[in-house]
């Protein structure tokens, strides 16, 4: 009898139960206040649950109680890394509902500045993604380049991060005096700098072993989950709103869309790196062909879009950011709904992570390029 008891105690000691690990909301690598509840077998992830909402501010509800121009600054706080792109989707939605005639120069300036914002956002992604995988120096290098973009933003909009870049019907003011030379200097530098980053990472054995074959998602699954942006194109799905439904001045621009093959972390990395080069190409074309003229349309004193609903979306740095707007003909929208790219992309986390190790979870969160301000709204 005694013997049997010893045997059972030993059994319970040796029987290792799965371990639940709370990653976040205070964790260096969850990119904000994401909480991931991991179920671990040793270090292998067997189940995963995302807990979001720590940054919920009720943006969509707030928008129902504000007049149309007053909503724009709130949109900067969605994806604060890409405030310029977020602002654009709001003003374009309202402009299109009202049928405003935005001048050509404003469209070109919007193209330049949103593409610069895309580069800034991707640089921040590159830095933090590399930092998550352990390459610390890349972060500082990426921030050095991002700083140049933020300086342009600061001179143009008066703010570095939450720019409040646009007004309904055009721009708050024309480009500042040295705008053209500043942008040209930046795009002159960024090409060689990107090559530098690629020499440090792309052929690095450790980088390859940490990213190749990690977090693979097929094109069909990516579409089914609703991924968009580089996360979708990394799986080889050719979908870019700048091409399929051009906005701003993208219809005039000549650029290519990078597509991955396997849909792993390495492909998404390559796609984003190439997207920065393509953005540079777009900025180059736009700055070369920048037309003269006014930057503001004739906008009525009171902005009252006609009764109805409208959906407009643009290709943000993280993916398709859309805005669904229902107007009841008053100065305030009846309902606003944001189509958040990061929220959709985060849904893929569970599928990407299961079967990988804890270290890969960090890499995969990085490769999805999430911003919690947009997920929680």
């Amino acid at each position, binding site marked *: 009898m005694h013997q049997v008891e010893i045997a059972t105690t030993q059994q319970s000691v040796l029987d290792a139960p799965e371990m639940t*690990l*709370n990653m976040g909301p205070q*964790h*260096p*690598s969850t990119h904000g206040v994401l909480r991931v509840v991991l179920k671990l077998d040793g*270090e292998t992830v067997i189940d995963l649950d995302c807990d979001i909402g720590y940054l919920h501010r009720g943006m969509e509800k707030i928008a129902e109680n504000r007049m149309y121009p007053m909503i724009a600054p709130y949109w900067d706080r969605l994806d604060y890394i890409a405030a310029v792109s977020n602002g654009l989707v709001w003003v*374009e939605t309202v*402009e*299109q*509902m009202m*049928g*405003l*005639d935005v*001048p050509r120069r404003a*469209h070109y300036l919007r193209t330049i500045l949103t593409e610069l914002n895309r580069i800034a956002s991707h640089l921040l992604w590159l830095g933090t993604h*590399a*930092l*998550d*995988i*352990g*390459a*610390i*120096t890349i972060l*500082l290098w990426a921030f*050095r380049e991002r700083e140049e973009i933020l300086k342009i933003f600061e001179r143009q909009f008066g703010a570095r991060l939450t720019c409040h870049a646009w007004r309904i019907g055009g721009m708050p003011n024309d480009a500042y005096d040295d705008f053209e030379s500043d942008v040209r200097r930046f795009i002159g530098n960024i090409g060689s700098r990107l090559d530098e980053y690629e020499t*440090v990472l792309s*052929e*690095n*054995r*450790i980088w*390859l*072993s*940490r990213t*190749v*074959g990690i977090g693979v998602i097929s094109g069909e699954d990516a579409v089914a989950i609703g991924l968009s942006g580089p996360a979708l194109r990394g799986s080889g799905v050719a979908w870019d709103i700048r*091409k*399929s*439904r*051009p*906005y*701003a001045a*993208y*219809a005039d621009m000549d650029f*290519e869309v*990078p*597509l*991955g*093959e*396997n849909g792993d972390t*390495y*492909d998404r990395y*390559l796609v984003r790196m190439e997207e920065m080069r393509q953005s540079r190409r777009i900025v180059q074309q736009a700055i070369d062909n920048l037309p003269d003229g006014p930057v503001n349309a004739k906008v009525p004193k009171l902005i009252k879009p*006609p009764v*109805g*609903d409208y959906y407009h979306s643009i290709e943000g740095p993280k993916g398709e950011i859309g805005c669904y707007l229902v107007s009841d003909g008053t100065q305030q929208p009846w309902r606003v709904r944001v189509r958040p790219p990061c929220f959709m992309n985060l849904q893929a986390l569970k599928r990407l992570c299961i079967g990988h*190790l*804890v*270290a890969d*979870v*960090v890499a995969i969160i990085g490769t999805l390029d999430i911003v919690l301000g947009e997920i929680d709204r």
Partner: protein
Amino acid sequence: MAILAFLAPINFIDSLLLKFFSEQTVNYVIWPFIQIGAVVTITAGWVAYATYLERKISAFMQARLGPMRVGPWGLLQPIADGLKLLVKEDFIPENADRWIFFTAPYIAVVAAFVVMAVVPFGPDWAVITDVNIGILFVLAVSSVGVLATILAGWSSNSKYALLGALRSSAQMVSYEVSMGLSIIGALMFARTLSLSGMVGAQQSDAIWFLFYQPIGFVIFVISGIAENNRAPFDLPEAESELVAGFHTEYSGFRWSLFFMAEYSAMVVVTAVATTLYLGGWYFPFVFRFTEARGFHNLYVVVSLIVFLAKIGLLLYLYFWLRWTLPRFRYDQLMDIGWKWLLPASLINIVVSAIVVFVLQALDGWHGMHTIDSIARGLNLTASGKAIAIFFGFGNLFLTAGILSLINWRSRDFNLKKQRRKIRLVDLPKGRPAVVPTGSADVSEARP
């Protein structure tokens, strides 16, 4: 002048001490205490300023300036940091195992500092004690440091700390194997286990063992970095995954003890690597211009500086790697340890044994003369050295070949070939949502 001013008192202190104590007390009690005091002080100071150096070096790599505010060029930053850590709250988690939590940092520091006792910083009085099994002592005591990591991780009662401790125990144990095996080749040439004896062997042979044992040196340095938990092998404290790994719950001075242990363990590993492969304090011509002309203390001091310079070079390699490379994953780390470094060190042992055997067999064969003497290590003649160096560097290719044979089926074998390119597609343009002419009819887009 400064050196001369520093040199004179040593004999003076010695004669002064002899007036008060017997010769044995002076030689075996008082001088060792002075040496220990000097080494501990210098090492602690080094640890403080190594953080400064690391921050500066990393800053220059990252287009920054690093610490600049405290003192000129931020030179007083380590002191400010130390003061801050001293006055910080010594926080203990509620359910921590208090006594183990208390003692773990001390184990780490003691294990890292005790090893300094046998490190030959220089000839004569620059070494605290010359144990005749010095290298075994180093390996044995430095592996006690693993215990501190495990205990710290376990007693913190935190899951991150526990994972960090598990990782570190697996990592340190598996890299200790290849580290221990990699030095055997050098021992065959040195014919002694004493660290001072190894330097003597290289000095009398006038060559660094690096040339006989390139593979051994590479394995030793890589396992040393892994053993010290430095990037790219810093998994136990991988801050992006495990927050701070095994010392997540430590704060204040207890945390800084772990920090000191890490940096002094780095010093120990680089010192042993220098002693074994880079000739220790030996440098050509130093003996001829100092000791041979009667400047004994100058000889010791110059040798000391040579040794510290060599350590500094290796430490720079540590910093350089840390700020350049991404981090390995846990399973990849194990792969490298068991599938690459361990076979490589075994091959190295076999090849070194064959070299020594060939040298002995060739000596006296058809009038060839390869071995000079075996009194202080294996002293080779010029032709013997040529054969040993040839085998040593040939071993690089042999090891590479055998390792490729072992590993060619593993996923990580040829990653660069697996590297893919992305396609660039010029998608057809759809109907614009916004027409940039500025005069388009937008009304059709309206609901």
